[in-house]
């Protein structure tokens, strides 16, 4: 039982380490190069959620140019 728990613990530890590493890399990376690895030598198309070369619109939660109000919990 303890060995199985140790395996689960190690697997979770690896997952946390890998995701932390990814967070560090992606946070410091540019938004254009979100694909890090590609298998094989086939030419890589643009990411599926960025079809075409049109400029990216502003985020939906910032409509208009009005100044952002202070957060309700402050």
């Amino acid at each position, binding site marked *: 039982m303890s060995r199985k728990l140790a*395996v689960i613990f190690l697997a*979770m530890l690896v*997952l946390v380490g890998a995701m932390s590493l990814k967070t560090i890399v992606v946070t410091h990376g540019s938004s254009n190069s979100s694909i890090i690895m590609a*298998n094989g030598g086939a030419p890589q198309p643009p990411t599926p959620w960025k079809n075409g070369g049109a400029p990216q619109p502003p985020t939906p939660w910032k409509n208009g140019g009005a100044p952002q109000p202070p957060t309700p919990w402050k």
Partner: protein
Amino acid sequence: MLGPYEYVVWLMCTLLETAVVVCAYKKDALRRYILLNVYMAASVVFSIARYNILSHYGFTSKEYLYFYYYSDALLTIVLYFALMSLYSHIFSDLKAERYIRIGTLILFSGTALFSYAVVQQSSSKLVTHFVVELSQNLYFVGLVLTYILWAAVMKMRETRTRLIQLVLSMGVYFSLCAANFALQNLYQSRGNFFEFLTPLFGCFLPLSWAYTFWHLPEDARIVPSRLAVVPR
């Protein structure tokens, strides 16, 4: 638009992937390293299918885009299980196959759940987001696992040359991808240079595996150097 360079590198990569399976078959390593060979065979099949779709629909078509990313996710999953099969080889003396299988499945399920948790907030193209996210997350898990495996090879003083070569080549491949990504972010103005360089990295893994299967016999032994010299 794709130029002759992209096509030549793609063809070279596919030929090298075929060479891995052929070399493994010729040297009786096909069954022993079955998941590594399944990964290479799947890469060849997907390369041919990608070329067919590319030539029918074009590079900027949605058909090619979706097929590329879905097949890439499948290949990454197979590569993950191939990496875990190397763990089974390394820890075969400890009779730990059962625990490695459990750990493999738990880690894979955890990565899939994490990927789903990340993408569930995006309303559109949920499945596609999930597929790409899972592929990239598995890449990072593979990167960490490869370094842990290399540490285990050093600690256990593994001597099987072919196995060491396979683990090392995987470590170099993952590191090349990570270094490429980091340099791309550092030097964004040199985008053309990295577009030239990136496809070449795809050839590294099949090249090193083909070399390993062809040149290194299964009974070849090597002693890896110590991790650190301990003064007496």
